[in-house]
């Protein structure tokens, strides 16, 4: 009984492992494959250069929140006794 159970288990695991992966091609994939032009060299080169290791080297960027804070000027405190001359 135990031997039979183990055998069935092994067969079952083997089937699971050997079962094929199924991929469903959607309409757009088929449409592109059948009707759109192919530019393999152009696309290969393009995709290769698209990923980035380092920050994008923009010449100029918007002032960051941190920088805005550094440039912030607080109004003089509105107190009765004035410390300095006008």
């Amino acid at each position: 009984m135990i031997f039979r159970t183990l055998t069935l288990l092994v067969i079952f695991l083997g089937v699971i492992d050997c079962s094929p992966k199924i991929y469903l091609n959607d309409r757009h994939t088929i449409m592109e494959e059948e009707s759109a032009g192919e530019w393999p060299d152009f696309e290969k080169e393009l995709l290769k250069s698209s990923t980035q290791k380092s920050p994008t080297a923009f010449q100029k960027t918007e002032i960051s929140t941190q920088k805005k804070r550094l440039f912030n000027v607080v109004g003089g405190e509105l107190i009765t006794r004035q410390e300095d001359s006008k």
Partner: protein
Amino acid sequence: MTMTSLSRRLIFIGLSFLASGAAWSAETIVQHRLAELTSIHRPQKVTVGPDDQFQGVTDPERNFLIFTRKADMVTYLCKQDLKNGKVTPLFGLQGDSQEPQLSPQRNLAFTYYKFNARGDICYLPYEALSDKSEKPEDKIKCLKSDQSERSSPFWKSESELGFLSRNLETGQSQIIIENLNSHQQATIAQGMIWSPSMRTGSDRIFYNASTAVQGDEQSGGRGLFTKKIGEKEGVAIQFDLPGLSGFPVVSADDTYLYFSQFLNDTNGDGIIDAGDNSVLFRAELATAIKGQRLFPEQLTSAEYNCSIPRLSGADIFATCAFEGTLDVYSFPQSGLVPSQWTAHVLANAHQTARTPAERILLLNVAKFRNLTSKQLDSSSFQERVLSNHLFSDDIAASQFYLEKLKLETKGAIGANPAFTEFLKLFLEAKAKKKAQPAEQDVSPSFRREILDLEKQISGRTANAKDETVVRAKAIFRGLLKTFIDDTRSSAEFLKAIEFKKPAHPLEWHYYFELAQSTYARANDFEAISAVYQKLFDTADLTAESKLYYGLKYLTTLGEIKKTESNGSLAPTIDYRIQTLQSMLINRSGPIISLFQSEAIVLRMIRENDENKKSEIYKELDQILSKSRSDYFLRKAIYVRAILIFAEANDFKYLDFIATNWIRYTEKSDTEFAQARTIFAQTSLDRGYDAFAQNKLDFAGNFFYGSLTLNDDLESHEGYINTLMKKSARDVIDERYTNLRNRKYIDDNFKLVEAFLGLIDEKQTTPDDTKTLDASILKLEAMTQDKDSPVRYLLLGYCFLEKLIRTQAGYEYNQTLLDQAHHNLMLAYDLGRDNARIKAAALTNLGMLHHRVSNHGLAAKFFTLRKPLGFVDTNELLRFTWVFAKSLFFNNQPDLAAAEISAFLTAEGKRIDIKQRAPFLERLAFYYQASEKYEKATLAYGELESTKLISGDLNLAKNHLGYGFSLLKTKQLQQAKTHLKLAIDTASRLTKIEKSKDRVIEFEPIRIKLNACGLLAQIGPVADQVQALTERLHLLETARELKLYDDTLALMILARLQGASLLAIQKDKLGSQWLNEGLKLAEQLVGGDQALSHSVFKAITTAIEQDLKYHVAKDNTREALLKSLIAKTIEAYSKQAKSQPFLALQKLKLQILWVAYQHQILHESGIGKAQIEEFLKQSPDHAKEVEPLAKALMEQFS
């Protein structure tokens, strides 16, 4: 590389800060320098990521942190290794968990929702938390639950757990302690209470309570209470602070009570509670528990919004919200203001503070530590704090300090009791205004409330004719009018205000607020300018205040819209310079220097000649030199100069100003840290600017200067990229050896190695990942800047590259996808304030998800990326191609076409013609896919004219697409031409098998099939039948090749189409085609597809056609139909629960068959009665087929 004098200057400035005689081992020069800076501490981020992370607690040795994470509305506990930052969920996600509490023995208590939606109090022994424990959830133990809602666990002792139990019906709560061994419970407090807290081993409980009478929420108040276990009543802990206290925690030595203070209603819900921004304080425990009102020590600034303090060693771990999400941060228990600061340093920090919230922190600390000075004397404390709360728009806190100030000044701030009264009423009005929904019209009830308050102001009779009273009335009545959008009345009040007698600065402040609110909408610069001039000229304001208003004036001047004589709308530089020069007349004080420097800077950016510009700069340099000792003036000049030069992209002079700023600031000054940061950021920006202009020597110098100043990863990468662009790879190693020897870099060198490894990589095979693996190891070993977004970006890139190289068609490694996504998301989250990092992270995230066909998400990331801009046309080209593709696969072909079209319009002339062809082809294809056939034909036509379509494969597809679009736009002759060309070209092609780069095999027969199908719609019947014949022949081949799942159905359709065409011409061939179609239908039925639409279509078409054309009986047809009808009706009938459309189809078949039997087969006994019987049997569908049935029965004789 030659070091220019500029770079030598940068290095010198960097090196000049090197403290002599300092001895350090692993610490770099940069770290040492940063530690020496005199600045307020900043909370150190402990948890990272885009989700909310809060309620963090650590073990006593600080090995790990347990915290709550909220992602996708689910809360769950996580454990973070504090040495390497690795985070793992503690349990599976089957049940929510939160509120972790660690005992001194590291046992974990928490609230768990797996077994009970109201929450269970559960605990886990320490052993289960260790890394070796496999499934900690198996060791969870929970206290027995009841019908109450349970939360807020705490450890009374290692064997006693306390918690809050709330009765859901009555709303009343109890604090219960349960013994974990005997399970005996004791209630130690009850009522309207929440947030219990107790130090383990103590006998004193802290909790929040409402003293309101039950059912009457307006009575009593809410506060923090304490009592010893066993005492009946708690003692209210009173702090001399506005708002509500909560989340109390006692230090291990019982010295301090730490707590959150919610000072204002920041979320605008009308109540101050834990939903509002929080500030952390601490107070001496011994004094607090006596119930005396005491002034506590402020630890954090309101800007950081920190709450839920937990103590560990000498630090606090708190939950703060100031960088986009909730995260756990740590800082010293003495707070963000260093405990060793003297009165002088505090005053200096107060002077250089960047926000009113920071000033409030410093004022409170100075008061608590009794560190007042000439600059910060105690007598002006209340006014200063009130002033800063008013600037921050903290209404509740302002009201609190106004009351205190009234007591101090006997109700007359600035000797003006009317002003003081009216200010109180104004704050009430402002609170009501804040509660109004934004961007909605003024409601009648709000208008009434404001007019009531205005009445109270105007109704004041004491000293009604005194100028100060008249003035105060006009100011506040005018402001109230702006709240109800009555700017006409407010303008009248404004004009009536006079300042013949001295006024308190607060009066001037509200006078200015009134003018701004009144004139803002009308964009009336002349009117507001007149008000500014009064501010500049009065003796009532300090120089600092005047400079503040001066900066506002300059900003307004730079933004006004002015119609020029040529009709253009722009605040021209000439206009600004002229206006400033007129402001100098008959005016004195530092404000003059500010306006003069502004005019000089504007003249500089107007000047194109470099020599002349340099001469003008000397004038500015003189002013900077003269104003060296006036901190406020100098800072105002620097800020304006930098902003103008940045706007004009003049990085050279921007750098001069930044250098000047740091040069004239003493290292011990609290301003130095800010100036240093600005200088470093400026160097980095200059590096990028020079890099973009290909001035690589300059770029290298600036990046090098920045990295020696900060040792930041972005500067390192910028420097390396610059040298690589200069083809100076050999220099990099030498430079970094030098930097390491001089201790400018240590742990961060791991990133440099990883980065250089990727640059130097020589891939042996396409799936070679050795270098990527080596780089990943180095990056994962980093400790110093392990939470830098640049590091996460590079790590994410490595995992992305690895995924790409190991991917084969649809197959990819899920772990690599998860790791790439995780790291890139961290780069995006941590780099949210840096557009360069954000752009790179978004690009990589889009590419990642595009590669694994997750096109919806890819399109989302690309959509976020687009507004950030692009470095050059090539980057935009690459982006547009992939973005359009993602949009197409995400079922948005119209948007894909729009992207390509916009790119070609903007950049088409700048790109190479060879790059233009693929874009034109895609444009045509996406137009076709989005059914915009006219535009598709134009694009195909343009593509054809370039003659850049090469190869039979692309030619065949192009002809097919073009032909289809022409057909759709009814250009039939041209369509025919192109479709025939598609067939001819495809005949020369052979099959291309699936591969790593091709997910579907290419079979040229598909092109021919499509073309034939389309040709079957064009031209005379003979041509169409010819095309169908060809199509059928091809379908036979397709059937053998198993190209389609539904080849039979396609063949039936072709047969039926042909039969219809031939029947019109009364061609007997049509009958043969019908029979062939029915034979094919038999095959489908034989293959268990009797219910398929093709079979139904075949039968109904055959019957309808025969009935229509009154054909003679055909034995073959009769036999086929009889067989098909019997089998299909049987199949329909076998449906256990018939779907409505199948029942309808069955009914149609039945009545059509009756008609056929009667009309064509002339079977006796078949007539209208059978049809009527079928209709009776299917009452649900009878109405739908009634017209058909009627028409058929009319044909019966």
